[in-house]
């Protein structure tokens, strides 16, 4: 799976970071960084939760 963030929507609310800190990190510059663009399958439920919980609907998952 590939984690995609629409940075035009992202408002750095950091909800994703609270759910999956090994994949999402909001840094001191105020921007979100994706730490693992292709996380292992074992991370799927956390990534899905981040997708559902993102207040600006900025995160999506692409397969392959």
């Amino acid at each position, binding site marked *: 799976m590939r984690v995609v963030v629409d940075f035009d*929507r992202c*408002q*750095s*609310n*950091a*909800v994703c*970071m*609270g759910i999956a*800190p090994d994949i999402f990190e*909001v*840094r*001191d*510059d*105020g921007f979100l960084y994706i730490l693992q663009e292709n996380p292992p399958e074992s991370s799927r439920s956390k990534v899905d939760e981040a*997708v*559902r*919980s*993102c*207040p*600006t*609907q900025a995160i*999506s998952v692409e397969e392959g």
Partner: protein
Amino acid sequence: MVGASLAGARAAEALRREGFDGPITLIGAEPHLPYTRPPLSKQYLEGTWGRDRLELKAPAPGPGTGVDFRLGTRAVGLDVARRRVRVSGPDGAGEVGFDGLVVATGCHPRTFPGAGDLDGVFTLRTVDDCDRLKAALDGGPRVAVIGAGFIGSEVAGTCRKRGLDVTVIEALPVPLAGALGEGMGHVLAGVHRDHGTGLRLGVGVEGFVPGPRAGDRHRVAGVRLADESVVEADVVVVGVGVVPTTGWLDGSGLAVDNGLVCDAACFVRAEGGGPGPGFVVAAGDVARWHNPLFGEDMRVEHWTNAVEQAEAAARNLLRGPGRAEPFAPPTYFWSDQYDVKIQYVGRARPGDRMVLAEGSIDERRFVAVYVRGERVVAALALNRPARIVAWQQRVASRSSWNPDLD
């Protein structure tokens, strides 16, 4: 699901994810599929985001998933014993039967006496409200905002971004004093002023000043304050809070007290406070549940809680009261006002000690924490999004305050 907004939609998704494959009906008073509301006071009202950005993008219940949407349909009564919701919709009055029920009817805006009599007076809750307000702002009006809460403050910020003349009227001495404490309120008053927003603080509203007749109604011309002064305005936005939408539960036998009263697992309680039916849960703005993390009954009117509580309530509904798990989140919300991002976790009360934990108030980049006894019960980050998660974990783990924590 009664309520087809964020909590209703997320509850439906959670039921499917947990393996429930029976029919699901979502009853929604608005004529729209579930959408997300936070942009209505910000990007959507400003005009930078279109309607497509309000769509709930994540696995939304849709055709082929066995989810029946009854939109434009209002719940008007609940018969717990017969397990039926009475509804009123495009096809007239009817009933919807259920085995399990999720109540997610949310809240509706509190209004002001006389607000409905004049054109140009608005509340903001739904996308239709927002479209009407947005159209009115297109004419370049002078705007008065009654109430410096989250919605009022965000709307004021958005109006300034649109170059409009704005005055915020607040009965308390500073904005958001109730939610964030007076110290933070002073900081936020400064943010309003620095962006050219007029503030009339510590003064109540007496009523609206009618203007010229437009058709068979009058337009608003301003807001009259308790000190007899008048804030002239062509558009007035009333942002004085919301009321849980529970009128339809009158006579249901369920406990209603500033929201639908629930236990720690989101199962509704019976009138008098005893255990409820065991097949009705509630989630989102309407639910007043016992949060064991803070040991208090609370109702949270924020986005993230609607998502988290809907998922917890749906899971518990499937498990039943015997195997249900308590819903004990630290709770999180954010607010974007002008160039300021506020993020808040936890639950403070008047009397909690507020301490500057990181950064500088003068630079408007800091974390302030709220301490009760030794325990960190809440944290507020202002323009420090990188730090909120660390503090969320401390609130969730009931950490003690320690100045060297960082």
